[in-house]
């Protein structure tokens, strides 16, 4: 039985583009971008921390948009996409929290700084998304599982901007914005940052496609095995279900 797996289409090209961009970003960060006058070499973590943060947030939002697509069309493959997007973004968010923590330790002397609104918002968003999987896998019926997970994904996606606004308002007057935002970055730093952002975004996309194609191969394997064990039975369509 041959079944087209659209998720694996274009994967080799995407992987090579990712590898090239990530290598380019790292080389730019270490050999091209100038040292920050105040922070020295530790500022280089900026080129991985900020892209990770941006990509994982966009991933959460994308997961919510895919969940809307699932709820509107009833097409379970969109739930699958949303599930993989959120799963990956949780991993990227862990990376953001760890790199942010290292940066905070190096520049302010503490592993955790409550006055940095982006990091604090990130922790809250991360804590919320941490219960996506427990919720999902504590519902047995696969169809209902997909629906409930999508409702959660949309709610949490709407929560992300509101939460950022609230945390920003609460910390605005306490601490000056130390981190230079891309608007005020000098040219070489900005270029390095943009290449890093592209690299991390491509990495996310590659991993997302890879995980999806892995999941769909696993589904077809299951289907083939079922056919092998009971060849006479009429093949029942096995829906795409999230496999832990």
């Amino acid at each position, binding site marked *: 039985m041959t079944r087209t797996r659209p998720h694996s289409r274009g994967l080799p090209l995407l992987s090579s583009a990712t590898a090239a961009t990530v290598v380019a970003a790292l080389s730019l960060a270490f050999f091209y971008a100038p040292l920050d006058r105040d922070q020295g070499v530790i500022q280089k973590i900026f080129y991985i921390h900020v892209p990770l943060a941006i990509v994982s947030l966009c991933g959460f939002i994308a997961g919510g948009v895919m969940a809307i697509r699932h709820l509107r069309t009833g097409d379970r493959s969109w739930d699958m996409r949303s599930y993989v997007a959120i799963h990956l973004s949780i991993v990227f968010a862990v990376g953001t929290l760890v790199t942010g923590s290292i940066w905070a330790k190096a520049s302010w002397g503490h592993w955790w700084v409550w006055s940095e609104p982006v990091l604090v918002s990130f922790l809250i968003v991360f804590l919320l998304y*941490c219960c996506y999987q427990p919720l999902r896998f*504590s519902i047995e019926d696969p169809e209902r599982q997909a629906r409930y997970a999508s409702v959660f994904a949309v709610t949490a996606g*709407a929560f992300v901007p*509101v939460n950022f*606004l609230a945390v920003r308002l609460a910390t605005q007057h306490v601490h000056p914005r130390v981190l230079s935002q891309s608007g005020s970055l000098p040219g070489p730093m900005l270029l390095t940052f943009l290449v890093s952002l592209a690299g991390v975004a491509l990495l996310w996309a590659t991993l997302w496609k890879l995980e999806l194609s892995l999941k769909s191969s696993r589904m077809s394997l299951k289907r083939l095995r079922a056919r092998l064990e009971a060849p006479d039975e009429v093949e029942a369509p096995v829906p795409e279900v999230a496999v832990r």
Partner: protein
Amino acid sequence: MTTTATPSERKIASVPPGLWRAATALLRKDFAHEVRTRQTVPAMALFSVTVFVLFHFGLARDTISGSLASGVLWVTLLLAAVVGVTRLFAAERDGGAGEGLLLAPIDRTAIYLAKASALLLYLALLEVVALPAFALLLAPGLGDGLPELIATLALADVGIAAIGALVAGLAAEARAREAIVPLMLLPLLVPVLIAAANASRPLLETHSHAAGLAKWLGLIGLYDVVFVLVSVALFDYLLED
């Protein structure tokens, strides 16, 4: 419900009731159930008083004010709200009333509106007990900023009820419901906590004054609008069986 239906009532029964009629009928049913069984509101109120006592010993303070007072008050209220949210669909789940509800020829949104209003009502009743208890046990100087504090409570309750009813619906089918509700609800309520605690901090100072109240109430208002709309849009999908 009357068993003998007059012709006019029969005519009404054949036409599905409108959204508001259905929602108020369901709310009346939930409230009557609560009045008879007394399973949710007393538990929430008792829980809040217990937490105040815990804070008294945990902080080793007889009276608190300012940021400590507003933190204790809001954290206690949010934890008490968790108790209410966990119990919100108890009758539908344990008594099998959920199927009856789904079979009723009503707009599904009415179910959400009724549940959110029921939670709003429970939260208001909780605060009627918790606020005097808080003033009595921990914060004697509560009286001065009371109108502003009540306004903050009212706005925050709308947000808590809106998201609480959605979370209760989401967790109703989950196996580890008791663990999932607080894990899901409390992070979602962080913006409400931030705004409400900031709004009430100056109100609970020894010399009560309102500072930045408009900004924080505006934030809670924005939260209310966003999550009422999101919940109304999404709740239908939880009941699609």
